[in-house]
């Protein structure tokens, strides 16, 4: 093997001139031993990359182990290295499930034979690339696009407003108009114009935003990209790190939290400090949509009471009228679903509240948002009428997390959900009564979880306790978590209305 020919091949490979390309092809075609050495050179580089990548991962995990007081740091790190090829295969399988349409399955070992059979998680598993999460009325697209449309690969143009797109792998993209966005697949988009803010969860690592100037590859982060007119791109890294591929280069530059820069016609012209304020967040959009929805709800004459728990002091105000206010004992107001302080925290036996609610005849809907920290009691009290007389109502959670609605009529009418509520997540709870169908129903988020036919004439709320119940002068039940908003209506909300309220009310990450 002639070492000089090999060296010339490598030089030509690194060159961008057509003459060198032609020479490279000529050499590769006519010098078999050197061609094989050229291939081995590339393979060896791959081995070296792999070796140092593994060392790098091993070092990170060993450092983490030391920091986390693990007893056997090197053992854990070496296990990670040992299982690296398995991770590569697992990644491929994971991609099949997250990206491949029709493969939303999981692997399950069949005990009868050696085969591993993938079975569907659920028949309703999403078979989509991306979805528009836009419930507002002030966005406009150049084509016909429904507000909750499934977005297949293709070009989309947002002409007005700000919107949110969620990909099947959980990546959320906030898009500000005017924007031209081309979706390639659930891991890659091209931003031709406009602003996007990407929030990338673990399942979406590797998500790529291409612009006319550069390519940005996520490594687990939140970042903003703006493409202006005449090939101007700005990138701002808010959390984590990204890889930047500049000038068509194949080897990336890493950029970390706080980094920002500007490119013009593919060339980096300015380095800056990341500015979060210039990119709308999913929270901003969600809050605007919720406010919009709230404003329309308040025109509903059936809405008797609505507490948003805002303000200070120990008074809870009904936002619908001066009647039916309440009081918080040992008040703790903390951040709710949105950035402002609007939730009540129930963290100790001292934290409870008392409201005064009207009597409802026939139909009613009771709705609240809660985030449960722990199920610390046999019965966890969300809201209970102070007395347990005829026509009283209790809305509670079992120790296992089943939702329970009890109404005392001729008998005690109880309904329970089989489903258990998730811990540490904001959930919408709704209890309704349809007097015409004599039907009590319970919903967790937008899903009906229980219903039964019961003859309820009325519910006399009166003094109602939030976060506890008093029996024999003692507070016997409690609640550990947060409550954000509570409303009572004199009509039965439809499943569609409950779904809309959930979709618009859930906070963005």
């Amino acid at each position: 093997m002639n070492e000089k020919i090999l060296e010339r091949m490598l030089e030509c490979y690194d060159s961008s001139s057509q003459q060198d390309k032609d020479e490279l092809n000529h050499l590769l075609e006519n010098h078999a031993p050197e061609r094989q050495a050229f291939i081995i050179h590339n393979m060896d580089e791959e081995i070296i990359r792999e070796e140092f990548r593994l060392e790098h991962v091993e070092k990170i995990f060993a450092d983490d182990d030391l920091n986390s007081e693990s007893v056997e740091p090197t053992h854990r790190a070496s296990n990670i290295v040992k299982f690296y090829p398995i991770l590569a295969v697992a990644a491929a399988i994971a991609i099949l499930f997250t990206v491949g349409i029709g493969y939303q399955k999981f692997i399950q070992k069949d005990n009868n034979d050696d085969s591993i059979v993938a079975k569907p998680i659920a028949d309703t598993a999403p078979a989509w690339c991306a979805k528009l999460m836009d419930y507002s009325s002030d966005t406009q697209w150049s084509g016909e696009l429904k507000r909750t449309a499934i977005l297949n690969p293709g070009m989309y143009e947002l002409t007005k407003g700000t919107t949110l797109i969620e990909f099947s792998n959980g990546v959320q993209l906030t898009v500000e108009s005017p924007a031209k966005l081309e979706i390639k697949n659930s891991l890659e988009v091209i931003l031709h114009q406009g602003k996007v803010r990407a929030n990338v969860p673990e399942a979406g690592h590797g998500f790529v935003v291409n612009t006319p100037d550069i390519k940005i590859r996520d490594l687990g982060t939140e970042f903003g990209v703006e493409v202006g007119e005449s090939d101007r791109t700005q990138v701002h890294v808010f959390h984590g790190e990204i890889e930047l591929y500049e000038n068509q280069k194949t080897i990336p530059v890493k950029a970390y939290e706080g980094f920002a820069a500007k490119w013009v016609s593919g060339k980096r012209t300015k380095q800056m400090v990341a500015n979060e304020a210039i990119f709308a967040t999913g929270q901003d959009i969600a809050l605007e949509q919720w406010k919009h929805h709230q404003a329309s709800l308040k025109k509903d004459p059936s809405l008797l009471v609505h507490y948003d728990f805002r303000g200070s002091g120990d008074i809870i105000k009904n936002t619908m009228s001066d009647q039916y206010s309440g009081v918080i004992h040992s008040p703790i107001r903390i951040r709710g679903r949105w950035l402002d302080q609007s939730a009540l925290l129930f963290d100790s036996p001292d934290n409870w509240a008392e409201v005064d609610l009207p009597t409802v005849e026939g139909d009613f809907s009771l709705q609240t948002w809660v985030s449960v920290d722990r199920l610390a009691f046999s019965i966890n009290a969300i809201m209970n009428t102070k007395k347990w007389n005829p026509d009283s109502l209790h809305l509670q959670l079992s120790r296992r997390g089943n939702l329970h609605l009890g109404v005392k009529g001729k008998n005690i009418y109880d309904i329970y959900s089989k489903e258990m509520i998730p811990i540490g997540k904001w959930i919408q709870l709704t209890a309704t009564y349809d007097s015409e169908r004599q039907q009590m129903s319970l919903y967790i988020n937008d899903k009906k979880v229980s219903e039964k036919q019961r003859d309820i004439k009325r519910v006399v709320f009166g003094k109602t306790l939030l976060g506890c119940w008093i029996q024999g002068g003692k507070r016997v039940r409690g609640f550990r978590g947060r409550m954000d908003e509570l409303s009572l209506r004199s009509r039965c909300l439809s499943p569609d209305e409950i779904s809309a309220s959930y979709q618009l009310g859930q906070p963005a990450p």
Partner: protein
Amino acid sequence: MNSLEISADFLQLLTQYQLAIRGYIRGAVGNAFDADDVFQKTNIILCQKASQWNQDIPFLKWAFTVARYEVMGHFRDQSRDKLIFNDTVIELMLDDSEALAPQMEKRAKLLKHCLQEVSDENRSILEARYGSAQTIEQISQQVGRSIDGVKSLLKRVRKKIRICITMKMENPVL
């Protein structure tokens, strides 16, 4: 309803031959970043086609055939100005890669020995380049060398490693 069936044997072989498949693709494609993409796609296709494989079919040969189509597809999809190899060379590179890729496992083991012959300073440059994926510019600033100086140093170290591995392959007693 679609159903993805992957046998335990298939998964074991796919895991075992990851390095060889990776080497085959890298050898033929040349560019590391492109090779990563093709490698990922190949793994996905292999999993999708898992039901077509049985124990009578030599796994690695079958996997290389699948990878070959992915490599050809990669070159076909590349824009003309980015294309480096002509069709004849692509075919030759694929054939040679197929013959050479099974060495990958052994070369990877020998690399550990050969790295012991690399000085600490050069090893830290390799680590910066391949471990933490730093650019040549960043490395040059860190080590106080020119960009060309870092490039030629990396070239020399890699050549030294290649020769060391090849010699150990040919003379296991070395």
